[in-house]
């Protein structure tokens, strides 16, 4: 088991970071932010879990989703582009509006595309991070061999 303070930080910070990621994602519609940066923040949150609980536990938690996430993200992005075809152009922006508690909300294909980007980034970054920490956790097998070299 790792240090208790890391686990504590993970408990507190990971949900907050994931919320920040969602905030950045939504803000990116017309302000600085967006899917790429939100994906990186979400990956940082998951990296915290890797540090606190180890890669095996993290893989148990997210594993089944992680491998196909890249494909899902790409599919979402392509779908956003394909929706534009309904209006006559690949990647044509399409929006829907609806009222929630007196506020008008707009959802559109740019956001859907951004969601795809975010999923791809999370999938890629977390896969890298998991592989890296797995490599760090297993001792290098060839240490002895290297020492005997002249």
């Amino acid at each position: 088991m790792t240090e208790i303070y890391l686990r504590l930080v993970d408990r507190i910070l990971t949900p907050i970071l994931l919320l920040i990621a969602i905030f950045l994602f939504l803000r990116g519609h017309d302000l600085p932010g967006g899917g790429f940066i939100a994906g990186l923040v979400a990956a940082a949150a998951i990296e915290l879990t890797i540090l606190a609980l180890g890669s095996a536990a993290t893989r148990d938690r997210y594993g089944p989703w992680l491998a196909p996430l890249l494909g899902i993200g790409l599919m979402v992005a392509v779908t956003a582009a394909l929706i534009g075809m309904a209006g006559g152009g690949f990647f044509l922006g399409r929006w829907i509006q609806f009222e929630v508690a007196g506020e008008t909300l707009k959802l559109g294909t740019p956001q859907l595309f951004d969601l795809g980007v975010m999923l791809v980034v999370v999938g890629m970054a977390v896969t890298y991070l998991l592989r890296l920490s797995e490599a760090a956790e297993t001792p290098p097998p060839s240490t002895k061999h290297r020492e005997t070299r002249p």
Partner: protein
Amino acid sequence: MTPHPTVLILPVALPLFLGAFSLLFQSMAPDRRVALQRILAGLGLFANMAVAGFLLFWVLQRGPQAFQLGLWPAPFGITVYLDTLTALMLAMVGLLSLLIYPFALETIDPERARLGFFPMLLFLLMGANGAFITGDLFNLYVFYEVLLMASFVLLTLGGTPSQINGGIRYVVLNLMGSMMLLLGAGITYGTLGTLNMAHIAVRMAEAPYTVQAVIAGLLLVAFGAKAAAFPAFFWLPSSYHTPHPVVTALFSGVLTKVGVYSLFRVFPLFFPTLLATWQPLLLTVAGLTMVIGVLGAFAQPTIRRLLSFHIISQIGYMLMGLGVALSPSTYGVGFGLALAILFLIHNQLVKTALLLGGGAVELEMGTGKLSELGGLVHSRPLQATLFLVAAFALAGFPPTSGFIGKLGLLEVTFAAGQWPIAAVSVFVSLLTTMSMIRLWQSIFWGKPRLSPPPGVRAPGRALWTTTPSAILVALSLAIGVAAQPMLTLVQTAASQAIDRAGYVRTVNPELTEQDRSLPLGIQSQRSEKAGG
């Protein structure tokens, strides 16, 4: 019936969609996942070939076509542009990737298939198609990156030390090329204020010589590095012999050729005057590429190392065609470019055939070392014949496509008065012949020195591995025997590629009438002349 212009995006969207779709099954059992990915890749390659064939047919009927992504008018949106040259390249790459598919199905090992060989094939296709069809300089850079990443994965798939070694050289040197391209695109945007290729073509004519020269130089270095031209060719021979043979065969038909295509596209469009003033530079690069490639080939100990040096050498001929692209000849301006395109197509056919043949030998005998092979003509007469014909096509003997290409190129260089480069190219052809005969002899002639390792040659395998190269060789012979239809085709392609006004008109007719002035701080050539 006129199809909706959105079909122009299909060469990119289709492989992307199917590639992404085949990544969805990552948590499935490996066997079932690979089976699914094989089917999806086959479907994708077949559909892509159908789309490319249709686009070629369409563009021959209706002339060049353009489409704006998201319907944003040029120069604000990303433009997709299709003319005969683009359609030809799409069809060629579609054909090659379709033909290597059965070879890959038969020979790729389960480990590499499990690691994602088949989805990566689709992503590679997407990158190449995108680089062909885009009409936006920055977008071109993006597709080069897609191509680079997909090819890097294919190159290192399997992860043997030699692959990692070759892969690192490949990716580092190619990233430098990409940086040059990005720098060129950045300077273009900074000086001309646009990245749309049609708009660049309009404004580049107004730009002062320094701006033109800097951008042309950067693009020449970038695309030259991608095409493995002298002096930035080192990445190719140090990486092409390391992956699975089918990957090498595919790369030889796709990767370097995308760089050559970009040169063919960008130079006549942006810098028609520089093609004349820089002719000595282009021809020098072409000559050095030819000579160094072919001399390097003499020192190589294995099939694929030898053939990868010949890839470089042949790139020199295409650059020679670019050098005389706009030189006047008896067949009109642009005949040089037409022959360069013909030579490019010929080379894609023949080189892939050679690498597939050599790859099949390497897989079956368990080694590609020339000193250990020999005498295979007794056990594989068909393979030996195909390899011999392809070798002579590469050297430029009649009645193959290589003869037509080289003869035509010689005629244009003579007409342009460029005797030295013509002499060099003839000399290099001679050396190529020697080298190829030596290669054929050491693989197929003499006494069998090595018995194939047991269990490698499964019954029925030869059908899958030989048919693709047979089709490629047959196509090369067909072009050589009945040259006229192909010549007409490439002449159409070249005349459209050098037609700058037509390009601009197709993309957006308003561009020429709009304000042609450059952004503040850049003095236009006209005012420069007026002032001086």
